[in-house]
């Protein structure tokens, strides 16, 4: 009985929404209402206004930078709440009853070559975020994955000495506070039409260009990497 009611509600919902879709403008046409002067402005003027060659990075880190700031605080809040829920206090002289140490020479030796390559690739994606596809979010995820791989292969106790909880939480809070201060300076000088000094835009195409874009990409990458590492360790037993 409950199953038939649920399926009935779902089919009604799909039919109602499809009625709306059948009237919308055709997919993929050039003169859709969505391709109006706003998107033309973004395509034409992004390089001149922000110094970025990747138009999407220019939009999320300069025109709509407030959205990205709030989204970083969503990530921060989620990692704090998962910390609240799952973190266990450290055992005194821990009896290692759930040790998952992998005793494999092949894994350890291959990882010594592979993990630095992964990290260099992640750093490349972050630094070139305003010139080619990528940016802080994608690069940060890759670096976070390399930390997770390190923890799986080398075990809990060894990784806790290299990446302790206190250092990670300091970097996380410091990164997002610095993001807030830098972007706050930019917002307030822009909103009040003050003409205080801003970082220069540089030549488009070179890596040190775009004003605030390069530091912000690095900060966002750091935040995402630490958050992803926290999610893994907290779900894997709760001890950092």
């Amino acid at each position, binding site marked *: 009985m409950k199953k038939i009611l649920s399926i009935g509600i779902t089919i009604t919902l799909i039919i109602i929404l499809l009625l709306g879709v059948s009237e919308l403008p055709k997919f993929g046409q050039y003169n859709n209402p969505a391709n109006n002067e706003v998107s033309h402005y973004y395509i034409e003027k992004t390089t001149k206004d922000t110094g970025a060659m990747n138009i999407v990075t220019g939009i999320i880190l300069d025109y709509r930078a407030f959205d990205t700031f*709030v989204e970083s605080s969503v990530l921060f809040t989620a990692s704090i709440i998962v910390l609240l829920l799952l973190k266990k206090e450290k055992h005194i002289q821990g009896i290692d009853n759930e040790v998952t140490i992998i005793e494999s020479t092949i894994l350890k030796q291959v990882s010594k070559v592979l993990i630095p390559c992964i990290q260099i690739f992640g750093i490349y994606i972050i630094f070139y975020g305003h010139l080619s596809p990528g940016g802080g979010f994608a690069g940060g995820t890759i670096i976070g994955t390399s930390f997770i791989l390190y923890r799986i292969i080398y075990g809990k106790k060894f990784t806790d000495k290299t990446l302790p909880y206190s250092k990670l939480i300091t970097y996380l809070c410091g990164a997002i506070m610095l993001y807030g201060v830098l972007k706050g300076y930019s917002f307030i000088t822009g909103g009040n039409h003050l003409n205080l000094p801003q970082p220069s835009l540089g030549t488009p195409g070179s890596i040190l260009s775009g004003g605030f874009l390069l530091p912000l990409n690095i900060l966002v990458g750091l935040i995402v990497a630490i958050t992803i590492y926290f999610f893994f360790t907290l779900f894997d037993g709760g001890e950092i």
Partner: protein
Amino acid sequence: MSIIQSFPLVIILVLLITAFMMPLIKNTKIIKGISLVSMTSVMILALINLDFVHKNGEYLYRIGHFNAPYGIEFRIGIIEAMMGLLFTFVALMIIWYSIYSIEKEIKQSKIGLYYLLVNILIGSLLGVVYSNDLFNCFVFIEVGTLASCGTIIVKDKKENIKATLKYLIMSCLGSGLVLMGIAYLYSMTGHLNINYIHAELVKCYLIYPNAVLISIVLFIIGLGVKSAMFPLHNWLPDAHSSAPSSSSAILSSLVLKAFVLLLIKILYGVFGMDILNHFSVLNIVLILGSLGMIMGSVFAIFQKNIKRVIAYSTVAQMGYIFLGIGLGTNLGVSIAIFHIIGHAVTKSALFLLAGAMIEQTGHKSLAQLKGIGREMPLTLGLFSIGALSMIGIPVLPGFISKWHLSLASIAAGDTILIVVILLSSLLNAVYYSPIVINGFFGEENLQGKVYKSKSKPLKELMPVIFLVISMIYVGIASRGIINLISLGLM
């Protein structure tokens, strides 16, 4: 361009940045001090901003170096400035009360993270109220949902976790529907800024009649789930009654209101009266509001736990606000916003006092709280003033809302609503009066209770006294406040 115009942005940045530094500090006294100082300073900034807007009128403030529609902007009018002052004032009183009582409810190591979540929550609610860009409002809604779930989960009991899971899943459903509504609007108009969408929609709504109707309904249901509209309110009693008492106060009095304000902004700012009258969707909101008023009170009569009674009463009061929105006239919306202000100060005082009673006696059920008037006279006295406002005694803000709602419904031509309003006032009296009467009177109730044996010291009850005084002030100055709101809606 004066520096006061940037105060709303400064308020949000100060709240968020002081929240980000809290995990690094180990001493809980310093964390409580930082939280109090930050909330006091943003309240002073909000007061100066309200004064500025009152003298100079509303303004648009761009964030960053680019004007709308290429960048994001804030729209600060009289209503937004008043809401800013209201949220920061109520939050300051609740944080002040919680400084003394939070250690008894959650573990010592989690107190710092609790104040972090409260700051992020208030910052995100202010962002929803101030912002003039639909997608920006959506991201602030997500932060608000996560932070409010976090303030429930700090208390580590099984019932909290189950209540939070139900709240989280229903909230995510609501957010998904709101995002789908934003997608429909974007594909029809190509803008995300509220003023620009309105200008485009007025030109083209006859080309896509079904799509506009579907997007209105998606917004109403999506934001209705988050602000406890009648049939979608199932998450509220569990979540609000199992949380720590200061969290329940913030949730009931502030979080629901920010989402209702966003619904008002979308219905009247994006769509406008012409489109709403063409499709006559406001009748849905009217009917669901009236049902909520009556059924909320009916459910409250059967509850045995004092916090659940107050939580179901919140459902009934949100019904009043939806009734005001559904009437569709200027007076109706003004009364809805006035009821937001009155209910925020009243309900927070009621939750904090209920928390004080539960903490001192250790009992939660109504049967075991009889005769508490002799043991905690000041507490129950303040509770009865709040209950009188809920029932609708003249001078207090509850009566003013009901009176003007009746006037507005006569003016709109739906006289049957007066019967509904009277019926719900009676039902309110049915479940609030036993608490007060059993507390103060009745020989078998008062037997064996020692006078003032369990009352809290005066310095801990000061914030609640301030809230009750401000409630009486809102009632007395109601004419001025309603005129100010109508001015802001023009």
